[in-house]
């Protein structure tokens, strides 16, 4: 999976989670949940959806690595290898 | 103005009488037991010693007689303060009040003034039963020619009398026995208060509670409680029951669009009936809810405390009535 594919999946799922926002405008080092105002439940749902779409499991201890668009993309890219 | 003094309603009334006696030689107080006894409710205690028998006149139990004499004395240049011990005895001099005091100016085509002031203690609250618990303000407020005022606050207790004595027309002042021991802060330099205007005692935007007399402090307390519940009630002290200061309450109702009328007098044909009618006539299109009255229950006032309390609106009743109007 390319980095672009991963990012577009992230954007798609974020858009579903927070339809009133524009995830594509996120800066790489911006905290996703803060920027898009996503609560813990939606955050979990987002990760569940990511898991389903990309088949990548994110253990709870790795949640910290998924905070920004950059780190999440990096993390998923790495895991998808 | 900034300095205040703590004073009972009784002391405030007395201060008003004392000041009036000081300021004008023509003023004298006459009434049953006002002198040697010190006043049935100790309002005039000590005044006899201070001003002498000529100014503080004990009179026999002749309500019609001495009220008539007071009216006569006022025709002939004096400024009498006539005390009818309680309103309960006021049917005896009613002829003098209704047929003489109220009519002489008119019958004489404007020639005769009747600058008499008649004070009466009124209201319930002391378990005095049916014959001694009357709220007869409406009976007097019915009569054109009289100025009928109601002392609902300490400031007015202190200040209404001297203004009333300056009136060329007869003034009936209602004071309230149950408030005599009540303490309140008033400005130390509190002086004469107006007797022609109602007063907004508390501003609010949600509803106008229109009342007088004992109802004033009750309504203010209810308004305080209501404010804790997010309801902003305006409290109007009518103060003068005749001629009514219509402007004040019409303006208020036009602002709040709702009105609760509170008084202790029996509801049928009371002051609230008149206020209500005027609201219908003058502010109908401003109303967003039916005008409600909270008056005395239609029963001779019974003796037991719990029944007595149930006979007139209490703070909780006012509070509940307001909530019912605002949240039907």
């Amino acid at each position, binding site marked *: 999976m390319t980095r672009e594919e991963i990012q577009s999946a992230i954007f798609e799922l974020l858009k579903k989670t927070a339809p009133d926002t524009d995830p594509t405008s996120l800066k790489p080092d911006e905290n996703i949940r*803060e920027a898009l105002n996503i*609560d813990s439940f939606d955050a979990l749902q987002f*990760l569940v959806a990511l898991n389903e779409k990309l088949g990548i*499991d994110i253990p*709870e201890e790795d949640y910290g690595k998924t905070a920004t668009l950059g780190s999440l993309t990096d993390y998923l890219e790495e895991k998808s290898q | 103005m900034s300095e205040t003094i703590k004073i009972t309603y009784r002391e405030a009334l007395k201060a008003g009488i004392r000041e009036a006696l000081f300021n004008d030689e023509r003023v004298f107080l006459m009434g049953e037991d006002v002198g040697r006894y010190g006043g049935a409710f100790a309002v005039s205690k000590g005044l006899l010693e201070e001003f002498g028998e000529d100014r503080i006149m004990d009179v026999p139990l002749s309500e019609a007689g001495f009220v008539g004499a007071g009216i006569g004395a006022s025709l002939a240049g004096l400024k009498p303060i006539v005390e009818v011990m309680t309103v309960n005895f006021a049917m005896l001099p009613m002829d003098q009040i209704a047929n003489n005091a109220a009519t002489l100016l008119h019958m004489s085509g404007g020639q005769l003034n009747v600058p008499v002031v008649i004070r009466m203690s009124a209201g319930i609250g002391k378990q005095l039963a049916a014959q001694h618990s009357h709220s007869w303000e409406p009976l007097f407020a019915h009569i054109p020619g009289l100025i009928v005022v109601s002392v609902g606050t300490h400031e007015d207790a202190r200040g209404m009398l001297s203004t009333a004595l300056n009136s060329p027309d007869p003034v009936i002042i209602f004071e309230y026995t149950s408030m005599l021991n009540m303490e309140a802060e008033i400005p130390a330099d509190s002086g004469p208060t107006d007797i022609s205007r109602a007063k907004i005692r508390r501003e609010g935007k949600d509803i106008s509670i229109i009342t007088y007399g004992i109802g004033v402090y009750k309504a203010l307390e209810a308004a305080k409680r209501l404010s804790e519940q997010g*309801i902003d009630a305006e409290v109007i002290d009518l103060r003068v029951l005749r001629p009514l200061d219509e402007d004040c309450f019409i303006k208020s109702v036009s602002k709040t669009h709702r009105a609760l009328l509170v008084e202790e007098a029996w509801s049928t044909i009371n002051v609230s009936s008149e206020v209500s009618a005027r609201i219908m006539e003058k502010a109908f299109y401003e109303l*967003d809810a039916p005008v409600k009255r909270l008056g005395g229950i239609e029963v001779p006032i019974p003796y037991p405390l719990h029944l007595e309390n149930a006979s007139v609106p209490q703070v909780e009743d006012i509070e509940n009535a307001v909530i019912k109007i605002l949240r*039907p």
Partner: protein
Amino acid sequence: MTEFLMPSLGADMEAGTLVEWKKKPGDQLKPGDIIAEVETQKGLIEIEVFEAGILEDYLIEEGDKVPVGAPMAKLKSEGTPGKIPEKDSETHPIQEKEQATESEGPVPSDSISEETSSKEKSSEEKHRIKASPLARSIAEKNNVDLTSLTGTGEGGAITKADVEQAMAGEKETPKQSPETTAVKDTVEKKAEQETPSKQVMEPPAPSSKPGQQESIRAAVAAAMSRSNREIPHYYLEKKIDMLAAMSWLKDTNRQREISGRLLPAVLFIKAVAKAIDSTPALNAVWDNGLQLKNEVNIGFVISLRAGGLLVPAIRNADTKNVDEIMTALNDMIPRARALKLRSSELSDSTITITSLGENGAEKVFGVIYPPQVAIVGFGSIVNEPLVHDGMLAVRPVLHVTLAGDHRATDGLTGSRFLEALNNHLQNPEKL
């Protein structure tokens, strides 16, 4: 025959607008069937039938707004009679209709005459609209048709506020014009949102209407104002050491697929449900006195992205295990966000929980949702120095508050509850 009435879904619901009939005349109905979708101050709500029967006829049309208790449809009852026993409901449906109506006396026996009489009634109602003089004059000046309004004043009279609300609503009616406000835009997008959970990946829900979000806001405002007005609140606060609970949660989640993982909120809900055991007076409603509730239905505050709150109930939370509670949340939250909750879910709560999650404020002092008598507030979990076993240590700390209705309980009860809650959270494995 019975009438299906606009249900009351909450103490503060006064009227509802029929958005869509979900059943057609002639359809067989069984208890639990969704008969219609109704828009309320709180949003679009599916309403259920509680008795079996046949939908005979509609009495109102889609788009009509009627007060609570107004007839919406005629039903032919089956089995147990409805709340209002009717002669013909005791015998058998359809064929006996004529006979049954005849037996009702002077009313002509055919359905046409029934229709006529109901028409007459409605036209009479039109002439006798109850509205305050002020409401009338404002309506007249602004060309508001009073017949279309439902009054919230005394005896259902239309008040100034009702007319103004209608005027505000009308302004929004023009559909999708480019100038529509940001708020409305948000609302509509929200309504079309697809929820991210597995089973709910559906086409956009057509249900939400402009103004719905505002009416939710208004409903929240009304409920909170009422609470503030009527309920003498007392507040208690307790710091809870969350080390044990968080560790347990971490261990549990580590062993689970992501879709099976638990949120701290599940522990809160379960702990509250258990703590109530010792203080049943908090699981109650105040309606001219305290009325204890047998079921523990925990209302969980869900904030909507565009503002406003919905508080669906997790039914019988005391009998559900943590996984079942998580499942319930997974089901409910997306539906709440899509404004697709069922009526009963919104009206059943017996106590409410509000949790601001990990990024929120440290403490939340809730406002009781009437007629309930308590709300438990969970702040975010923060690391704080805490004396533990006589030593000062930095530990994850949760500030829990209880707002209680002082008419119903006092601080002692509340205190006992918080202590019990603490105990349960110290033993997460037993939850």
